[in-house]
């Protein structure tokens, strides 16, 4: 992590409770940094998770995911304040 306004590393945040475990993001991720979690979410699905490292911020997973709010992708150099 760096100071506000500085260069942040790319990352992906998955809202586990909005994930239906379809696996399309995992299948599509070109750098293979997503995985199916063992835990069950409130809907009874195994949600996708981020391995924590290696996201390039390409956004492919976002556009494969059918849920509007389940995935948020942060590109390299995003500004933290944008996150609401």
């Amino acid at each position, binding site marked *: 992590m760096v100071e506000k306004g500085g260069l942040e590393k790319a990352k992906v945040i998955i809202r586990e409770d909005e994930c239906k475990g379809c696996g399309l993001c995992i299948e599509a991720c070109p750098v293979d940094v997503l995985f199916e979690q063992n835990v069950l979410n409130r809907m009874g699905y195994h949600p996708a998770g981020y391995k924590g490292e290696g996201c390039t911020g390409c956004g492919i997973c976002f556009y*494969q995911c*059918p849920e509007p*709010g*389940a995935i948020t992708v942060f590109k390299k150099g995003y500004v933290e304040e944008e*996150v609401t």
Partner: protein
Amino acid sequence: MAKIIRKSDSFYPIYEHKSGAKDVTHYCPGCGHGVLHKLIAEALDDFQIRDRTILMSPVGCSVFAYYYFRVGNIQCSHGRAPAVATGIKRVFPESIVISYQGDGDLAAIGGNNIIQAANRGENITVFFVNNAIYGMTGGQMAPTTLVGQKTTTSPRGRSVANEGYPVAVSEMLATLKAPVYIERVALTDAKNTNKVRHAVRKALQIQIENKGFSLVEVLSACPSGWKMTPVQAKQWITDYMCKQFPLGVFRDTSAEIEPSPAVKNEFISHDLFKKLDIPDKPFRAVKSETPPVNYQNPRLKIAGFGGQGILLLGLGIAQAGMQMGYQVSWIPSYGPEMRGGTANCHVNLSNKRIGSPVVSQPSTLIAMNLPSLEKFECEVIPGGLIIYDSSLINRPPARKDVEVLGIPATKIADDLGNTRIANMVILGAYIARTSIIPRQVVVDTLPVFIKRKNLVPLNVKAVDKGIEYVSQ
């Protein structure tokens, strides 16, 4: 380019209308609808058109699209979204109207509606989700179901012999002249999904620029209906659907059309009477002498064959009668009485409120051919009046208890050079015999119901000949 890719503002932050969890959609895992929703919402954000967008939710799995899109929403009946979209777009030409439809909705029950909206070139954007199945109702056959594909209503696979071939909507609509842009895309891998994104944006851009109708057909996965995993379903689109439904642009005339601003409807409320051809002067009844008792409050039946101006003759009496301050009614031959090539009309002139406008027992019969005289002579009340065209009817009425006036109206008209004004000769004879309407009132009202104004003087001449004949 935004550094954060996230849920668009064009989605409601919370899906208030939805029951259950209000932060996730109702769609099944791996369903294509959600992805298309995201691509549309993102475009509404980027083009800053959310505030003026109105979305049609269809019947099918996307029946609840209105849960999610933070725009004006109309939920439509099955297949009718293009008609509903037409209605609201005509009210708000400046709005962005999206018709979101599935294959059963658009290609089966609503087939004609999409064809006609496309053919009218409605300036709307249609997103057509083709997943080859009825998802919402539990996996029945769709018009786009592939040959051999098993569904709950094609349990042995779609058979060409029984159900025909899948409907190729994009190809079909592309044969029409009006549509501006028609493309088929597929929600499969990242590359194809990006093409969907571009197609969505292009289609909306065309509407923003007021260029006309666009439709994007989106091949989309239905893992539940197909009984596959989401990953398998995507592969199935590539392996099977894309072969039946080739991807590509089927029509694009967008480059040839200049962008233009939408023209708002102007509600015109001035000079309405003038625009509606309603006389704007206070009505004043013409005063005249009271006619003899037996001619008062006449109930007329006027009959002849088509082309003799029977209806116009009745109209002339009604029009002039109104000017005299009478209550009047006029009914054309209509319904069962129209049989047999005869024309007739019923006219009432009365000092008091008119009950039945249908004249069953006429006080005056005007017969302009023999069948009419034969048919209606018996209906005339005792002491009534029968006027007949003696140049076409070679026997006088048989009734002895009525007043009879024969006038060679057609011959007189021929002498004036126009057979068709025999009706006006009769009109002249009628008013001369009964004194119910002064000549001047008839002359003044002729221009109201005679459409070709240059014929008015000739008609006046015919009326005068009729008056002259009776007065001799």
